[in-house]
């Protein structure tokens, strides 16, 4: 026998409390929740219209409204004006969009912005500044590890994640562990030298 509806439920089957919880994030929220299946369902369905989300980018909480289909990369670049991560292939195959998600390198083009809530997102801007560069950034400059520079932000983030895992990499580690990024200008040699230099000078926390 189907249970009678709780008085506080909306017609979509979502409790009013859930509805308000999820709508506190954005400003006024229209059509935030729709079409939940089943009686008393606990699963919230968002979209397809815009939803309010919160992203933690480089230590700051940013609020924005996006459709669920918006990728983390597009949210960063087009909504939040954090343009370090680059869009090149947009298909998980080049690494230009690499950011850290809870410390792990990911392709921001292949993560939805809605999924990145409650996670720490670090882009190249969050690693260091021109005045106070991250050891990897400094080593890239010193080893001339870029040419056009378009792959560089993604490569820098990938190298930082790599060195975190392999503080003393050998050449095999380097080949395997930096295989997720492509450089069309072929600056690999400089990048390898930069990574080795950081390792030799005490690593990324030096």
């Amino acid at each position: 026998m189907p249970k009678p509806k709780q008085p506080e439920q909306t017609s979509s089957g979502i409790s009013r409390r859930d509805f308000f919880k999820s709508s506190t994030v954005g400003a006024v929220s229209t059509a935030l929740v729709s079409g939940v299946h089943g009686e008393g369902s606990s699963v919230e369905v968002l979209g397809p219209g815009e939803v309010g989300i919160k992203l933690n980018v480089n230590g700051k909480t940013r609020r924005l409204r996006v459709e669920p289909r918006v990728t983390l990369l597009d949210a960063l670049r087009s909504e939040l004006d954090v343009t370090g991560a680059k869009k090149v292939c947009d298909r998980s195959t080049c690494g230009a969009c690499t950011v850290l998600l809870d410390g792990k390198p990911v392709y921001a083009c292949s993560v939805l912005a809605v999924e990145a809530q409650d996670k720490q997102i670090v882009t190249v801007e969050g690693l260091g500044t021109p005045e106070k560069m991250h050891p990897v950034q400094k080593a890239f400059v010193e080893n001339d590890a870029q040419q056009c520079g378009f792959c560089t932000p993604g490569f820098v983030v990938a190298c930082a994640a790599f060195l975190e895992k392999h503080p003393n990499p050998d050449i095999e580690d380097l080949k395997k562990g930096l295989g997720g990024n492509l450089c069309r200008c072929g600056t690999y040699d400089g990048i390898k030298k930069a990574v080795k230099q950081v390792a030799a000078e005490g690593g990324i926390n030096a």
Partner: protein
Amino acid sequence: MNSFEYASPRTIAGALEVLDNDSVILAGGTDLLSLMKEGLVAPKRVVNIKEIDELKGINVGEDGSVTIGALVTLEEVLESPDLAELCPSVVEAAAGVRSPQIQSVGTVAGDLCQRPRCWYYRNGFGLTAMKDGKSLARDGDNRYHAILGNDGAALFVNPSSLAPALIALDAKISIVGKSGSREVALADFFQTPSSDQEKEYKLEAGEILTAITIPSPAGKKVATYEIREKQALDWPLTAAAVAIEMNGDQVSAAKVVLGHVAPVPWVSAEAGAALAGKQVTAESAAAAGDAAVKSAKALSKNGFKIQLARVAVKRAVLRAAGMEV
């Protein structure tokens, strides 16, 4: 990408509630987002399963069987001491996906369910790549296409590197859907579609692959050997995975599975039979390689893959036996 609804349930039951015929499952997203951007998949709803703890973790049972949760990432495979000890061939296969960004979020179930990389399929011509009644793949650029099982309409190759290693170890997968749960041999999960109405694996809309179980691999000698055009960000040209059981110094049973050579992970009974009753030597390993490609047929541009497959099998056998390749 089309617009879609989004849900992120925390339990399998919750996921089944929100999955329907117009939904797709999102795991690491490393393939799904590309498919959606190309318009090859255009769901009404995307169900993110990553918050479901029931789908996580690697467990070794009392009987020695190994269960790998659907959401186990390739990185977790690479870092698992249990898998390194019990089924290194699976770890070797995961290591071939040479991108830390894919390893960090790409999942084992996602690897098995990733869609083929055939460029005709990816450009919207369907799995059988037909245009105006003609096969684009048979007449066109088929350098990476099938050399085995290529008599029918489907000429793409199965893209999963993990599948051959898991099938060689007789892995089973668990599937749940609204109408209940089932367990199938991974080898039977894959199929060669005869038309674009069929898929290359048997999973109904709304069904979730929950886990992969390998019966106790104790005592089996295993290895994966891949041949790649480039070492990063690409799929192998061909690969072979083997699991060999020994009786004294003779092979009592051998399972040889080739990857990236056919529309399905290709179990070569011929190669297995060539090894049975033999000692593993350079000669018997080479004979297994020859047997594996005996029925292979080149398309117009992929004849080179026959030799690569032969060599991959030989080297996988030698590697499994701890011999120099």
